[in-house]
């Protein structure tokens, strides 16, 4: 496998739960997971040798993930711009033990670990069995439309206070 320049750390991915395999052929190549804190991550296969498969793990925003699935941005756009400014590289052996976790910056990735510029989504996602329980929906209402949105909710008998109780995250622009 390629030598990678990163900062070795201990990180436990065992609490992550799968939402879907976004690219699957006899096994996952790109998978969407959610952490115990509700953050969205991608597990992206990049390499293997006789002992391990290597994955890059990066936090993504749902809007960006939706743009990728909607073919508006490429996979390279996602991988090269992780939410945290860095990715994790992790090796997974045949017993599914995760080891040699490294923090790595996108600019330090070897070219073979980056998709091509035209790597737009051309696959079908395979949802996990319990994906519906884990799926979150993100709705962003521009500030100038807020009053109109609240009026619409009021008219359909769904007060904004109820929505605020349901929503775990809200973005206001």
């Amino acid at each position, binding site marked *: 496998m390629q030598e990678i320049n990163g900062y070795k750390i201990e990180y436990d991915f065992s609490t992550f739960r799968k939402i879907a395999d976004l690219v699957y052929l*006899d096994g*996952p190549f790109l998978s969407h997971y959610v952490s115990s804190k509700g953050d969205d991550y991608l597990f992206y296969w990049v390499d293997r040798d006789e002992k391990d*498969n290597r994955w890059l793990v990066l936090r993504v925003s749902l809007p960006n993930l939706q743009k990728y699935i909607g073919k508006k941005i490429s*996979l390279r756009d996602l991988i090269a711009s992780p939410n945290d400014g860095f990715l994790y590289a992790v090796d997974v052996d045949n017993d599914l033990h995760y080891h040699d976790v490294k923090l790595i910056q996108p600019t330090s990735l070897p070219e073979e670990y980056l998709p091509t510029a035209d790597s737009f989504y051309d696959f079908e996602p395979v949802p996990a069995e319990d994906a519906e329980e884990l799926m979150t929906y993100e709705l962003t209402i521009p500030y100038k439309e807020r009053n109109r949105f609240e009026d619409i909710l009021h008219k359909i008998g769904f007060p904004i206070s109820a929505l605020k109780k349901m929503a775990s995250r809200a973005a206001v622009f």
Partner: protein
Amino acid sequence: MIAKEPKFKYQEQIEKLVALGCQLPELFAPDNMQAYRFAFSESGHQNHVPQYLLNPKRMLQEIDKGRANASLLALSCFTTSEKAEAFYTSLRKAFRNVAISIGESLSEGRLTNEDGRKTVSAPNGHFDFYEYEGCDLNKTFVITKNLTNK
């Protein structure tokens, strides 16, 4: 006399997945159809082995933690060479080292009803093939093209 249903090649492993809650998909006879698979041209490399039985297997979690997917014990095939090549091209854009995992070549062969059973074919040409006991696609599939010389 009623003919006995043939056993799958990986019957024991399939039964373990069924015990974990997995169901086999609806399967159909291949009726001597031509099929296409990705493979390694190097003679020392294992071809036509389900990912779950390879070492190291390309998985992220134990099968009892998520969806128990019987596809792990099937072989991915395509209905036409064009659809197989199109899928490979998309894979290669997204995963530059994909040839290391699934091979750099296209292989083709005919699937008989004695070889096993297939799932319904997807619009992109992909289907899963569950081999019967005694099936060995290494004997019937041949390498036809290198998919990375582009």
